[in-house]
């Protein structure tokens, strides 16, 4: 994608995730930042050499150009960039000035080949359109909070940015599909996305399950009432357990971990209900754990696998980072820091051979590092103060 120019005027996570996918495949991605910088530059601690961890994670292989929205040169500079760009990624927020306010005309009216992604919290239509929102409000309004904790307890938050990252991924799909369509039509277009809409798209199974089910049983329906899934405790960790291939596999596992009595226990007659996603998991868990908590994780994993089941350990960000399988799939990469040294990051999660050579990994850019170069190149002089 080395001839594709992406303008990223989208602070935070969603827009930068979208831009990162382009940058990883060789597109030229220019972050347009206000003088105080993308808000995520201030998200921390943790910081590394003054850069925030979220910012470093999402902005490798990009350039940074500062535009002061109040600067009288801003409209001219923006117009020059829009005229030259293939994709504009904008995250609209009530306290952030939109490009349409500054340019007066629509960006797609300046450049009819432009693909303009407009990300908002709640989408362009409906009574909650235009409201401020965030990762947390998207998790709250979409019902995702109900998938953690217990209904009677204070709401919990998913520790990964499901709405923001999901919207960034949907944004890349939209932009690329629109570019593919442009190859035929010659025309770009506007595409709307939202944090809340992304999670509601993701929640489709739950929405359909609860609509008018034949029976209020089965996977996903009593989900809200299931106890929190904390895994099965072993002597030194936690594991998952699943015996999809049938009862004899489960019996074999029980025998290997000292639960020989379970297959004859009337409470475990419907053994499938007592494990994995069964409705009796909560009641049955203490029985399994009494035996498993005496065994090392490696022994439980081996017992399950040798019996023909599936079992994996629960990881932390530390333990997964050291796992050999992660290395095998090339899930991580090493990227320079803006100052000195290098740091590990998550690599592009899919393998695709591009016609151009893979781009070198460049550090996430210091604020405004390419301001002068970008505006010199795109025909608008840099402001002396920038």
């Amino acid at each position, binding site marked *: 994608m080395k001839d594709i120019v992406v303008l990223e005027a989208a602070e935070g996570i969603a827009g930068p995730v979208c831009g990162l996918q382009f940058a990883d495949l060789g597109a030229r991605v220019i972050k347009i930042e206000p003088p105080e910088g993308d808000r995520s530059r201030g998200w921390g601690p943790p910081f590394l050499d003054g850069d*925030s961890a979220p910012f470093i994670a999402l902005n490798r292989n990009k350039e940074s150009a500062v535009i002061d929205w109040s600067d009288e040169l801003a409209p001219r500079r923006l117009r020059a960039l829009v005229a030259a760009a293939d994709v504009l990624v904008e995250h609209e927020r009530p306290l952030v000035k939109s490009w349409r306010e500054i340019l007066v005309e629509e960006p797609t009216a300046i450049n009819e080949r432009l693909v303009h992604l407009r990300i908002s919290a709640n989408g*362009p239509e409906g009574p909650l359109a235009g409201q401020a929102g965030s990762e947390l409000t998207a998790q709250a309004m979409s019902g995702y909070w109900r998938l953690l904790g217990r209904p009677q307890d204070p709401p919990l938050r998913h520790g990964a940015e499901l709405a923001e990252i999901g919207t960034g991924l949907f944004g890349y799909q939209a932009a690329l599909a629109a570019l593919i369509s442009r190859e035929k039509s010659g025309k770009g277009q506007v595409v709307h996305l939202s944090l809340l809409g992304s999670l509601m798209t993701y929640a489709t199974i739950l929405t359909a399950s609860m609509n008018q089910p034949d029976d209020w049983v089965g996977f996903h329906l009593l989900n809200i009432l299931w106890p929190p899934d904390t895994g099965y405790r072993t002597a030194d960790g936690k594991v998952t357990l699943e015996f999809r291939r049938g009862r004899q596999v489960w019996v074999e596992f029980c025998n290997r971990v000292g639960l020989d009595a379970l297959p004859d226990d009337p409470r475990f007659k419907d053994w499938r209900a007592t494990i994995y996603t069964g409705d009796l998991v909560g009641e049955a868990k203490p029985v399994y754990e009494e035996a498993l908590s005496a065994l090392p994780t490696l022994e439980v994993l081996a017992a399950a696998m040798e019996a023909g089941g599936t079992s994996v350990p629960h990881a932390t960000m530390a333990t*997964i980072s050291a796992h050999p399988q992660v290395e095998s799939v090339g899930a991580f990469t090493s990227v320079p820091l803006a100052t000195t040294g290098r740091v590990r*990051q998550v690599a592009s999660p899919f393998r695709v051979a591009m016609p151009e050579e893979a781009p070198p990994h460049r550090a996430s850019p210091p604020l405004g590092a390419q301001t002068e170069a970008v505006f010199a190149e795109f025909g608008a002089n840099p402001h002396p103060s920038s």
Partner: protein
Amino acid sequence: MTTGPLAGVTVLDISQAAVGPWAGMLLGQLGADVIKLEPPAGDLIHYVKPTQNGLGTTYATMNLNKRGVILDLKDPQDRAAALALAKKADVVIENFRPGVVERLGIDYAAVRALNPRVVYCSVTGFGRTGPMKDMGCTDQHAQAFCGYGALNGEPEGTGELMRYYAHHDLTTAMIVTQAVLSGLWARERTGEGQQVETSMLQAGLALQRVRLMEYFTTGIAPTPQGSAISYCAPDQAFLCGDARHVAVSVTSEPEWRAFCAAAGLPELEADPRFARNADRVRHRGALVAILAERFAAAPAPWWVKKLNAAGVPASLYFDYEQQRHHAHFHEGGMIVEVEKEPWGTLAVGGLPWRFDGTPCAVEPPPFPGEHTQQVAAEYGVSAKHQPGSWRLPPRDPEPAAAGKEKKA
């Protein structure tokens, strides 16, 4: 039919369950003609409850915007039909365990020999190389293995997984879609197709890339923080005077100034402990104590109105019953209804993108094999399955080989 941006693209989706099928569905919703190929016994996801009028709702939501074809890949005539479909496809998606498509004779080499322009996507659980390549994977295992469970829960707690065992499946499907679109884009430049691939492991780690970065920068693994997040404050739930919670996020300095004014706490803006986000994160305990008292003084809806009016993100906590008939979710297209026998009215998640130039639409799912003869006629091949004849076989209570060739 749809006028979506991928109109004219043909996808042969031979995947099962969720990880592959949802990617096929997204491509269908983007306007591609997607043919879902099932074996005579059907996609294993038919067994996932609940049903609506006897047929699975999960099957429906993973296969919207497709045509349904049943072919027996172990039967020479049907396999020839499948290869005829693959020969004309722009995209093939499969999510079997390594080695299975080779046995079925519809692997990348076989398809490429007929169709060098094909973008062929293989998606697995843990990757196609490495010590765990042959292990099956599901959402729950992916969550645990990737460390997702270490990020959620009460502070000081042991962490917990998400009980919606599909989010990691669907995130993998998102990455499949990215890979396919990137392959199609590369083909625009070179004229050549290719095999693209991803795994649930890579998708799960990409979903956590911000939190992994915390570990990579500090060497300290992040832990659960209730409703809060490590790097911003205030950005969490507060208990209000009506015993309901409000979700409040301040993620920029302009939002902080607006928050202080709207909350009637101008003294906080001047307090050096709370000057910048990094200061507020460092003095989170003191900040939250002050705010908790303030939030308790008014009901949650009052706070939502007050903060939204000031441009500060704030919302109530909704559940399904509040969404199902809420005007925003319908007018905003976030819950969409489609009609299809035998399900009747299906309520499904809406489109995640709204294209102004090439509008997309949510189309109903096929009844399994509904289009077998229609597609066979279109491609000039013969197929055994007769539409309307399909019934879900009773599930063997102890299927000896189930899971062997099933979902990645």
